[in-house]
């Protein structure tokens, strides 16, 4: 299956590399180079006291400010937003970069379409929002999460297991699964459309060749759709992480 391609190096060790792992490393390199270039611009601006950003620098600022302002500051406020900004920025750009490979010709599969990376990021989000809650409220964080205030005591029999499940188990699981399944489904859709096009155009007879054009159009539309999904899933993952942190920080606990 395409999500488990052949191992190309280090077979049998935890360092085994297959196509998807290689794609991840390439995305890692691309992100490093891109943000390194932007950082160089920022550094140069800091050194030379030039306050007017160039076009390239401005693009970086818009990208980084999207996470900083529209996600972190909006949900957490400036102080807490800046505290958790490194994690949120990393999650956003890793997810976006890995998702977008799903439609880049030559890669054609998202780096997030095998569950390892979503699990790692969901774990990071999980650890972070528990850390945020414990740091702010101490052990009271857990008791307040599991025994919400204002609920009649007998109902805790019902409410507490639900809260335990939803807060401490389902949150990371849904984060990881939502992203992975979106990417898998997107990949399958594209594969379906383009394999059908290939089949209709080259293997089918006469009249059926016309279906090829239709399936190709669908493939094209889904490719555009996948760009949207790539961006949207990155946004959703980051936003949900922020919301979980915000819930953990809020004074209701």
């Amino acid at each position: 299956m395409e999500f488990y391609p052949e191992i190309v190096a280090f077979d049998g060790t935890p360092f085994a590399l297959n196509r998807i792992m290689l794609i991840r490393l390439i995305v890692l390199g691309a992100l490093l180079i891109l943000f390194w270039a932007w950082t160089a611009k920022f550094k140069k601006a800091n050194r030379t006291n030039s306050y007017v950003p160039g076009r390239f620098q401005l693009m970086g600022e818009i990208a980084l400010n999207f996470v900083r302002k529209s996600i972190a500051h909006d949900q957490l406020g400036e102080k807490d937003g800046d505290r958790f900004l490194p994690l949120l920025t990393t999650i956003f750009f890793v997810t976006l970069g890995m998702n977008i490979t799903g439609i880049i010709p030559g890669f054609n599969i998202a780096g997030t379409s095998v569950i390892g990376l979503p699990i790692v990021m969901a774990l990071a989000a999980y650890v972070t929002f528990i850390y945020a809650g414990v740091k702010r409220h101490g052990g009271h964080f857990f008791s307040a999460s599991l025994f919400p205030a204002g609920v009649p005591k007998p109902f805790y029999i019902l409410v507490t297991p639900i809260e335990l499940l939803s807060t401490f188990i389902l949150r990371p699981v849904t984060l990881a699964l939502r992203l992975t399944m979106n990417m898998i489904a997107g990949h399958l859709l594209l594969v379906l459309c383009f394999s059908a096009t290939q089949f209709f155009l080259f293997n089918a007879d006469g009249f059926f060749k016309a279906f090829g054009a239709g399936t190709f159009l669908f493939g094209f539309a889904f490719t555009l759709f996948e760009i949207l999904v790539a961006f949207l899933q990155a946004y959703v993952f980051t936003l949900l992480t922020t919301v979980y942190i915000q819930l953990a920080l809020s004074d209701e606990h």
Partner: protein
Amino acid sequence: MISRILAAAAEGETPNPLLPSSYDLLWSSVVFVILLAFFWFKVLPNFKKTLDQRAEAIEGRLEAAEKAQAEAAAKTANIEAAQAEARAEAAKIRDEARSEGAAILAELKEQAASEAARLTATAKAQIEAERQAALISLRAEVGSLAIDLASSVVGASLKNDKVAAGVVDQFLADLEAGDKAGKKK
């Protein structure tokens, strides 16, 4: 694809997509940790510094602009005050000049009037003197003429009309001559 899945299923090793393999987790962690550290310690601090510096610069510039504006306003006020002062002074000078001019004009008029009066008086006096002189000389002449005429009349012993006529003619001629002599004088 289908054949490969079938083959994998036949071998009983279709991987569960929900269970990560160890290499998957390892490479994911590597990528994530590297990028986390990169953003945390490299990108974001520099980005924040740039934004802070820019905010500072903009605030500084706004302040400077406000200061400059206040200075300009003060300068304008000063200039306006100086202008008003200058205008007031000019008005004062103009008023003074006007009143001075009026005074000078009045003086000149007075002078002219008195001069005219003087000239008129002088002319009148002269005319009067000339008239007196003419009167005096006329009176003297008329007297002598009358005497001459009377003596001629008496002296010629008016015997006949011829003599009388001759006397009168003689008198008139003398009178004429006298008149000529008078005119020559």
